[in-house]
């Protein structure tokens, strides 16, 4: 201990440093992931059965000379390795190529138009799902022996069993096709997953001796849960919730498709179905970036509650 008074609360001026420290440790992995994601994105947009040029001229009269010229313009006559290098270089300049379906429209413009919708949807759902999931998880951990605990467990299993497309359809048919219902369709399964994880982590903490001590000194059940169990469960919880990011993205795509919201998920699904390979390939990269962004954000949000990180005291 540093000799400071224990229990001191409030944000420390060292916080930004500690957060940077956390990120730096993940940097090598993130760089490797970025490289792999660019390669995957290139493979999805280039190494394909089927010829994008044929798709461009589909339904129009095109003579072989013109097809050859189009192919040369697009660099498709080069070896794959050369194509990959130029793809990576273009990417660094912020150029992801042009959509095959909407001739000439830059992929970055399509993605840029779609991204705000997806981010709004996810932010709204997170604002709903995080508090709801953590509250339900705490309740389930506290009441595990009584029937409400079992009911909550079964309820969360039920929410996990309903495919996102089904839930979104039911909510759209029962409610309306407006944005709040879409957010609910995204938030409910997320809240169920968070509740399960919270319950597991909190039950783990409730088995420790200091919980018994807290109870023995006369603290009430709710005070024990909120002051002792939850803070100690938050750090592992942050990591676990961060790993849900992939499922959350799939659910987002499902919700956007059902509610016809022009976000990244719907754009991608339509691009894949229309064999718009440049957009689909770029989406591979965007989803990896979104997943990293979600898991880092959740880790930071929940991780802020980590006393070692937040309070002025011993450095991490």
């Amino acid at each position, binding site marked *: 201990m540093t000799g400071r008074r224990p229990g001191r609360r409030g944000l420390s001026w060292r916080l930004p440093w500690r957060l940077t420290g956390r990120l730096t440790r993940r940097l090598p*992995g993130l760089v*490797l*992931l970025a490289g*792999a*994601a660019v390669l*995957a994105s290139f*493979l*999805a*947009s280039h*190494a*394909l*059965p089927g010829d994008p040029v044929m798709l461009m001229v589909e339904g129009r009269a095109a003579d072989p000379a013109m097809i050859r010229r189009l192919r040369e313009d697009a660099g498709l006559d080069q070896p794959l390795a050369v194509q990959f290098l130029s793809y990576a270089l273009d990417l660094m300049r912020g150029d992801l190529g042009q959509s095959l379906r909407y001739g000439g429209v830059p992929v970055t413009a399509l993605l840029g138009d779609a991204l705000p919708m997806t981010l709004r949807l996810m932010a709204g759902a997170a604002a709903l799902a995080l508090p709801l999931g953590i509250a339900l998880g705490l309740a389930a951990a506290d009441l595990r022996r009584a029937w409400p605990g*079992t009911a909550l*467990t*079964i309820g969360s*299993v*039920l929410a*996990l*069993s*309903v*495919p*996102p*497309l*089904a839930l979104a*359809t*039911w909510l759209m*048919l029962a409610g309306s096709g407006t944005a709040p219902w879409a957010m609910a369709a995204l938030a409910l399964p997320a809240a169920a997953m968070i509740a399960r994880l919270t319950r597991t982590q909190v039950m783990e903490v409730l*088995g420790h001796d200091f919980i018994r001590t807290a109870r023995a000194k006369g603290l009430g059940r709710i005070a024990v849960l909120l002051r002792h169990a939850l803070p100690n469960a938050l750090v592992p919880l942050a990591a676990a919730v961060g*790993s849900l*990011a*992939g*499922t959350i*993205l*799939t*659910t987002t*795509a*499902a919700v956007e*498709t*059902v509610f016809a919201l022009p976000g990244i*998920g719907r754009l*991608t*699904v339509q691009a*894949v*179905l229309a064999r718009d*390979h440049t957009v*689909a*390939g770029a*989406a*591979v*990269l965007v*989803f*990896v970036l*979104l*997943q*990293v962004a979600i898991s880092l954000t959740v880790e930071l949000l929940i991780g802020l509650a980590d006393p070692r990180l937040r309070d002025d005291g011993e450095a991490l």
Partner: protein
Amino acid sequence: MIAVRSLAGRAGLLLAAALAMPLALAVLLLPLDPAAMDLGQAWAGPSAVHPLGCDGLGRDIAARLIAGTGTSFAIAGLALALAVGLGVASGGVAGWVGGRTDAVVLRLADLLHGFPELSLAIVAAALLGPGTEAMVLTLALAAWPSQVRWCRALALSNRTAEHVRAAAALGAGPLHTVRRHLLPAVAGPVAIRAALSIGPVMVAEATLSGLGLGIQEPAVSLGTLIRDGLADLRDASHLIAATTITVAAVALAVNLLAEGLRESLDPRRR
């Protein structure tokens, strides 16, 4: 049945039985062909011959649901068998050998974990062509990282366990130790983990195929059925209702049974 010891397991068994009875009746009493078309029956509501009605091509929805559930189970089983097999092999070796092997395997698992299902599905469909193989590969790759970490942790904790060190002290070779002492110790936890994954993998298949990124026509899975239902939302609500309710009920039964299994085998709950 061990799973019946807990409430969740009992609920799951009850639900599975409730699903199995109409299934048995349908298989015994009805001519079930998921591909047979009868355009005169297009959008027909429930009747004696077609208990759940027909879709836009006059195909029997009950027959398609039964066939689709079978496909979805097969795909989930295949993907999990791949993920668990590879996971036990790579994770087990990583945890048992340690050192550089361990670091490489962990890095690889972290790398793959960084790819969301959607990205994997797009890349797999681009490389293999959209369809069953791409879907199985996607689901297996998505499930592999967590299997690796789990098997690695199990191997790591068993490596220093008393019974393993005793075997080594008695002169057992590494192969004998792995076969007789490591594998039996990890089999149970690995099986529980796999059972818990069946439901989520089926839901993932239903979602990806439902979006059009997975199983393709004319193959039938729970996902393609949802997709058909979504396409014809206005014409026939009975199609989307029957499909989504079936998918949810099947996944719920599987999840509850797995949950029951986990709870009854959890030493903290005995």
